[in-house]
C-alpha cells in the first residue's frame, strides 16, 4: 500500500540520528575553518549515543525498508554536518566495489580495510570510460604496474587502501578498464595533496599519483577471469554499484538543504514571519511564497530519493530512478540554499551562522558521483530507449 508515514520505531531511530548529528554540528565550523585537520574517528560524545545503524539491526533480514531508512539516516547525519560524524564508519566507496565484484579471497583480505575509490583523472571528469591510468602486467614478476594520476578521491587521505580504475588495453575502450586494489604505502603510490575546496572542506578529498606502482597480480578486482571477456561486463559491474550511491549522495545533499530550510524557518519565525500553507498567491507575503517554493522543491526531491531506495528494497531495477533522484536533488539543493540566503539576506552570508556553509557544502551534490549532465544522459537514454551510440 502506498504510504509515506514512518513507523513509530523508525521515527525514534531518525530522531536519535538528528540528536546525534546536532552534536556533530557543534564541530562543523571548526573543521570548516581548519581544513588541514580531519574530524576524529569518534567524537568524545559518541559513547553517550547509540549508533543509528545498530538500531536497525533488530530487523528481520527480509525487511525491505532498509534502503529507505538508510537514505533517511544519511540525510539525518548530513543534516548535522557533512563531514563530522559521531562515529566514522570504516567503509569507503571502494568497499562497496569490493563487495560487489571482489573474489571471496579478496573480500577476506581487504574487507576489513577502509577503501577509497579512485576514478576521476585530471583529464576525464565525468567520463570514466576515458581513464588514462594504465595497468600493465609484468609477467616476469607477476605484478601489475600502474601509472597515472587520480583526483577527487573521497576519503583518499585516510583510507587504508584504494580501488583504482585503470585500463589494461586502451584500444579496447570501456572493455579495457579494470579495477585494482592498492594498499597505502605501496611503492610508487603517492598521495599528492588534499584538495582545497569550496565546501565540504573538512572532507578528505585527495589527489593521487601512481609512478610505476607495482602490485601483486591477485589485486585485480574480481580476479583474472574478468580479463578475457569481450563485453564491457566488468565495467558495467562496477557502474552497477552506483545504483545506491547516487541516491545516497542525493540524500546527503538534501540533508544539508533541509538544515538550511529549518534554519531559515526558525529565523523567520523569530522575526515574526509565520509559514502558513492554507493561502494562495494573493494572501501570502513574498517571503513566505519564496519559502514555500523551496520547501516544496525539497519535498519533491526527497521523494524521488525515497522512491529509488524503495525500489532497491523491492529488488527492482532502479538505474533510471537513481539518476532521476541524483539529478533532481543536485539542482534542488543548489536552488534551496541559494534561496534561503536570499530570504535571510545579510544573515545568510555571515560565517556566524552555518547557512553560508550549507550553501557551499551542498554544491558538490550535482558534481560528484556523476554530474547532473551525466544523470540526465542516463535518464534520457532510458526513456528514449537509446544506446550510447544514439545519444551522447
Amino acid at each position, binding site marked *: *500500500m*502506498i*504510504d*509515506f*508515514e*514512518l*513507523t513509530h520505531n*523508525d521515527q525514534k531511530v531518525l530522531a536519535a540520528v538528528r540528536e546525534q548529528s546536532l552534536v556533530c554540528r557543534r564541530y562543523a565550523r571548526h573543521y570548516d575553518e581548519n581544513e588541514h585537520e580531519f574530524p576524529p574517528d569518534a567524537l568524545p560524545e559518541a559513547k553517550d549515543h547509540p549508533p543509528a545503524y545498530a538500531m536497525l539491526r533488530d530487523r528481520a533480514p527480509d525487511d525491505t*525498508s532498509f534502503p*529507505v531508512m538508510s537514505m533517511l539516516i544519511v540525510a539525518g547525519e548530513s543534516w548535522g554536518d557533512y563531514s563530522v560524524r559521531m562515529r566514522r564508519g570504516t567503509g569507503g566507496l571502494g568497499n562497496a566495489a569490493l563487495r560487489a565484484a571482489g573474489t571471496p579471497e579478496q573480500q577476506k583480505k581487504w574487507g576489513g580495510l577502509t577503501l577509497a575509490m579512485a576514478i576521476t583523472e585530471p583529464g576525464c571528469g565525468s567520463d570514466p570510460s576515458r581513464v588514462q591510468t594504465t595497468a600493465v602486467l609484468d609477467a616476469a614478476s607477476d605484478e601489475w604496474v600502474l601509472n597515472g594520476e587520480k583526483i577527487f578521491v573521497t576519503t583518499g587521505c585516510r583510507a587504508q587502501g584504494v580501488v583504482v580504475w585503470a585500463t589494461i588495453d586502451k584500444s579496447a575502450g570501456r572493455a579495457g578498464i579494470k579495477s585494482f586494489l592498492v594498499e597505502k604505502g605501496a611503492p610508487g603510490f603517492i598521495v599528492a595533496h588534499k584538495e582545497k575546496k569550496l565546501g565540504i572542506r573538512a572532507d578528505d578529498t585527495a589527489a593521487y599519483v601512481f609512478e610505476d606502482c607495482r602490485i601483486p597480480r591477485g589485486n585485480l578486482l574480481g580476479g583474472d577471469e574478468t580479463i578475457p571477456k569481450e563485453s564491457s561486463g566488468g565495467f558495467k559491474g562496477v557502474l552497477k554499484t552506483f545504483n545506491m550511491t547516487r541516491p545516497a549522495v542525493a540524500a546527503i545533499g538534501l540533508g544539508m538543504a533541509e538544515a538550511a530550510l529549518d534554519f531559515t524557518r526558525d529565523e523567520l519565525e523569530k522575526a515574526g514571519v509565520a509559514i502558513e*500553507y*492554507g*493561502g*494562495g498567491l*494573493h*494572501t501570502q507575503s513574498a517571503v513566505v511564497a519564496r519559502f*514555500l*517554493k523551496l*520547501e*516544496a*522543491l525539497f*519535498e*519533491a*526531491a526527497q*521523494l*524521488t530519493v*525515497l*522512491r529509488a531506495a*524503495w*525500489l532497491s528494497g*523491492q529488488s527492482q531495477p532502479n538505474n533510471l*530512478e537513481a539518476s*532521476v533522484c541524483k*539529478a*533532481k536533488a543536485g539542482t534542488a539543493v543548489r536552488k534551496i540554499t541559494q534561496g534561503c540566503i536570499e530570504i535571510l539576506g545579510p544573515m545568510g552570508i555571515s560565517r556566524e551562522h552555518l547557512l553560508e556553509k550549507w550553501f557551499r557544502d551542498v554544491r558538490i551534490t550535482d558534481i560528484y558521483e556523476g554530474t547532473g*549532465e551525466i544523470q*540526465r*544522459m542516463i*535518464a*534520457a*537514454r532510458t*526513456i*528514449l*530507449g*537509446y544506446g550510447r551510440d*544514439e*545519444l551522447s
Partner: protein
Amino acid sequence: MISFEPTEEQQIARDAMHEFAAAALRPVARECDESASLPENVLEPMHQLGLGSTQLPAEHGGGGEARSPITNALVLEELAWGDAGLALAAVAPAAFAFAVADFGTDEQKRALLPLFCGARFHAASLAVIEPGPASDAALPRTLAEPKGAGFVLSGSKRFVPLADRASHFLVIARNNGGQDAFVVPRDAAGLRIGQPDAKLGLRALPTASLELERVELPASARLGGARGCDVRRILDSSRAAIAAALVGLARGVLDYAVPYAKEREAFGQAIARKQAIAFRLADMHIEVESMRWLAWKAASRLERGLSATRAAHHAHAYAAEQAMWIADEGVQVLGGHGFIREHPVEMWYRNARTLSVLEGTLGL
C-alpha cells in the same frame, strides 16, 4: 512504512482507467475542446466506471468501499492523461458527494447521497472560486448571515463545474468569522446561474458563474448541521485532486513528446538525439515523477486522516508550476507542430494553464 506500491486492486483500477482513457477519452477530446461540449455518451460510460459511488456508504446506495484518496489520485491521473476536462467533469459530483459523506448530517446523507448512486450520471458540484483577481479559496467573500433558524447567502461564485446541469451546489461561505459549506439547490430563490463560460482550456468541462442574491436557506442547508464542517479539509482534498489531475496531464505531454522526438528529424537525425531535446525530455520525466510522489503523499495523508494542508499545498503548487512548464516545453519540442491543432499538445498547453489556476473546484 514508506511504500510506493499501489495495492493489487489499485493497480487493476489504474490499468482499467488507462485503457478507458485511451479508448474513450482521447478520441473525443479534440472535438469536445473545439465545440466546448460535454457529450452524454462520454459522461455516462465514465459514470458506469463507478468513480464516485463505489466509495459511498452502502446504506445510501453506494458500493460501501472504504474511501481512498490514493485510489482516486491514481484513477484521476489516468483519466486526466486521457483528457483533463472530461476527467474533471466526471469526478466533479464526487467532490460534492464525498464532502456530504464526510461532514454531512445523517439527514443530509440520506437526502443527497442516493442521487449519486443511480444508474445515470448525476451532476452536483462545489462552488468555491470567486470573482476578481485577488480572490483566495481559503478566504471567501460570499457571506452567510443568520436569519431565523436558517441563513441568507450573498455573493458570487465563478467557474462552477457542471453548473449547467447540477442539481445542487456546495457553496463555501464565510459564516460567523469562520467558513462553512452550504447545500444550495439549483432552484433556490435568488440563485442565478450564468451562461456557460468561454474558457482558454478545459473546454469540455462546462462551468458557469453563480450569483447568490440573498438566497434564503434553512438551517439544514449548512453542511454538518450545527457542527459545521472542515472547509480546510475540503480545500485540501481539492488541491490534492487537482495535483493528481495535473500529473496525468503532464504525463500525457511527455508520452506524446518522446515518440515524436524520436521520429522527427532535423539536420539529418532524430531531434531526440540532440542533448537540448533529450535532456529536456529527461527533465520532463523527472518532474512528472516528482509531481506524482507529492500528489501521492498528499493523498496518503488524507487517507490516513492526518493533517494534509501542508502536503496538499506543496502537491498542488508544485504540480501547477511543473505541469505548465512541461506543457510549454512539449509545445517547444514539437515546434510548429506544437502550435497547430492537428496535434493535441497545444490543447494540453491551454489545459495546463487553465487547470493550474483552479483551486478548490474538486475534492476527492
